[in-house]
C-alpha cells in the first residue's frame, strides 16, 4: 500500500496561473431523469486553498460534491482528483485516492451503532496497523482538536447534539490526515460562536496540515473569514470563481442579492480586504 500512496505527488502545474490543481472538474453534466442539475460545469481547486462553494438551496452543490467523490454518476465530462482521472482508475488506485480525502456529509453520516470513539477509529483501523493505545490517544486528540471533550468519546451519535455531530463528523473526516477535505455545510446548525470556532479550526488545520478544503456553505462569515476563493453555482453552471473582493464587485444580479442582501448586513468591501 505504501508504494501506491505518494503522499506529496507534485501534480503538474496547471496552465492557469501555474497553481497546483488538486481537483479538476471539466464539462461535467449530471441529471436525474429529465432534470439536468449540473450543466457543463468547470471548476478547479488548488492545493492548500479553502474553496467556498455557494449557490441557492437545491442548486446542486451537494450533487457536485457527491459527483466528485463518485457517489453520483455523471453523464458527461471528466473529473481528476490529485491528478488521477476517476473514470479510468482501478479499484486499488481509487482506494488510494479515497484514503487521501475526508468527507463531512451534510447530515454527519456517523455510524449510528458505533460510539464516537469507534467512529473516529473506524477508517484508521481499516488502513493502518496501529497499537490500541495509539488509536485511542489519536481519537481523543482529534476529538479535542475539533473542540469536543474527551468525555464524549463513549457516547452514541443519537446522544449527541447537532453541533457535536458535525464536529465528530469533521474529526472522522480528518482521521487519516487527508490532503483534501470535502465539507458539506459544516457550520449550518451551529451557533454563531460554534460556527466561528469551526472556521478558526478549519483555518488552523489548513495551515498546520496543509489541507485543501472544498467547502459547501451558506455562511457569509465563513466565506469572509476562511475561504481563499469562492465559486458560485447558478442555474447549473459555475458563473464566478474568485476571491471575496471579486464576488462583492460582481454585477450579476443573483450574486448582488446574495452578497449585498439583508443578511450580509454591515459587510462592506473594506471588510473583505482585511481577512
Amino acid at each position: 500500500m505504501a508504494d501506491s500512496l505518494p503522499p506529496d505527488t507534485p501534480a503538474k502545474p496547471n496552465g492557469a496561473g501555474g497553481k497546483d490543481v488538486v481537483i479538476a472538474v471539466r464539462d461535467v453534466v449530471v441529471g436525474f431523469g429529465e432534470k439536468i442539475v449540473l450543466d457543463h460545469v468547470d471548476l478547479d481547486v488548488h492545493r492548500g486553498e479553502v474553496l467556498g462553494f455557494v449557490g441557492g438551496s437545491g442548486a446542486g452543490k451537494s450533487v457536485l460534491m457527491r459527483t466528485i467523490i463518485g457517489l453520483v454518476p455523471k453523464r458527461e465530462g471528466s473529473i481528476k482528483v490529485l491528478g488521477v482521472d476517476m473514470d479510468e482508475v482501478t479499484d486499488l488506485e481509487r482506494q488510494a485516492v479515497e484514503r487521501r480525502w475526508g468527507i463531512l456529509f451534510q447530515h454527519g453520516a456517523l455510524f449510528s451503532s458505533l460510539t464516537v470513539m469507534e467512529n473516529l477509529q473506524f477508517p484508521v483501523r481499516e488502513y493502518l496497523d496501529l497499537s490500541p493505545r495509539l488509536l485511542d490517544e489519536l481519537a481523543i486528540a482529534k476529538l479535542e482538536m475539533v473542540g469536543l471533550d474527551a468525555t464524549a468519546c463513549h457516547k452514541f451519535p443519537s446522544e449527541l447534539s447537532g453541533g457535536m455531530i458535525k464536529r465528530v463528523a469533521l474529526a472522522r473526516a480528518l482521521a487519516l490526515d487527508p490532503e483534501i477535505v470535502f465539507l458539506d455545510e459544516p457550520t449550518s446548525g451551529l451557533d454563531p460562536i460554534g460556527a466561528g470556532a469551526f472556521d478558526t479550526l478549519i483555518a488552523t488545520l489548513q495551515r498546520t496540515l496543509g489541507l485543501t478544503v472544498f467547502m459547501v456553505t451558506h455562511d457569509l462569515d465563513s466565506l469572509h473569514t476562511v475561504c481563499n476563493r469562492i465559486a458560485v453555482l447558478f442555474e447549473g453552471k459555475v458563473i464566478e470563481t474568485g476571491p471575496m473582493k471579486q464576488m462583492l464587485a460582481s454585477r450579476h444580479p443573483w450574486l448582488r442579492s446574495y452578497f449585498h442582501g439583508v443578511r450580509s448586513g454591515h459587510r462592506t468591501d473594506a471588510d473583505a480586504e482585511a481577512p
Partner: protein
Amino acid sequence: MSDILLEETSEGERLKLVGAGAWVALNARRLESQIDSARLRHRGAGQVDIDMTGVERLDTFGAWLLERLVRSFSAGGATPNVTGLKEDYRLLMDELGAVKGAEKIVPRTGTQSLTYALSSIGENVASVGNSFGSIANMLGAVIVALLRVLTRPRSFRFTSLVHQLDNVAWRAVPIVLLITFLIGCIIAQQGLFHFRRFGADVFVVDMVGILVLRELGVLIVCIMVAGRTGSAYTAELGSMKMREEIDALRTMGFDPTEVLILPRILALIIGVPILTFLGSMSALYGGGLVCWLYGGIDPEIFLSRLKESISLNTFQVGMIKAPFMALVIGIVASVEGMAVKGSAESLGRQTTASVVESIFLVIVMDGIFAIFFASIGK
C-alpha cells in the same frame, strides 16, 4: 525510507534524540515502538534534546508521538527540548500540546463474564415482563384513540386506512393463496399416503377440512402477515422515530397512535380475516385437487364428504380467531417500532423482536383459543 526514525546519543546526564525520515501515519507503528523503547532505556535522563531537523514530514500521527515522547519525559522529571521543527509543524504541535484527555482515557465499562451472564439473564426476564406491560399500554392507547375517533369520525384517516389495506391485504393475496394452496396439497397428500394403508382414504377429506378451517388457515396467514406486515410496520415506525418524525407529529398536536398506529391496526383487523378466508379456500382447493388427482376421490365425493364433516361452527372457529391475532400482530409491531432508539442496529433488533414475538404470541393465542373452544364444547 530509512528504518531508523529516532537516533540517540547520550552524553552523561544529557540525552540527545535525533529524528529522521517521515514521521507519518504509515510509519506510526515503528515510530511508536522506537519512541517507547527510547523512553524506557532512558528513564533517568535529566536533560533531553530532541532534534527534529532531519524529519522530512510530520502529520498528526507523528506529531502526537512526538508529543507523547515529550510528555513522558516531562512526567519523569526531565526537561525535554524540541528543536529544528518547521514553523508549520510548530502550529500542529501547539494544537496537540493542548490535548488534555488522552492520558486518562476511561475504557468502556468492561463486564466480567459471570456477572454479565447473570445480569443479562435477569435483564431478559425483566424485559419479558416489561414488554407485556408495554403491549397492555399500547392496547390501551389504541382503544382510547379508537374511542376518540368514534366521537368525531371525520378526523379518522380513511386514506391512510385504504393505503394500509392495499398493502396488508390486497398485495398479500397472491403469496397467501400460493402458500396455503401448497399447504393444502401437502396435507392431503400425506393424509392419503398414510390413511390408505388401513383403507380410510376418504377420512382425508375430514382431516383437510377441519384442520384447514379450524387451525391451519388462520395460523399460516398470521405467521405470514407477522413476517410480511408486522416487520414492515416496525421498520416504518422505527425509522420515523429515529428521524424525529414522530416527535414532529406530536408537537403539531397530533397523537401518533391515532395518526399512525390506529389505521395500521384497523387495516390488519380487516385484512387478516379476509386473507384467512381466501387462504382457507385455497388450501381446501389444493387438498381437493390432490385427493382427485392422487387419491382418486372425485370432486363430487370430496364436496359431499366435506359437507358432512364440517359445519358452520368449524369455519367460525377459525374466522373468529383471525381479528384477535391481527390485533396482537399490530400491537406488537407498533410497540417494537416505538421502542427503536437512535441506531440502525436498534432498528434491526426491534424488527426481529417484532416478528419473533408476534409469531410466538399468535401460536400461544391459538392454544388458548383451542382450550376455550374445547371447554365450551365447540
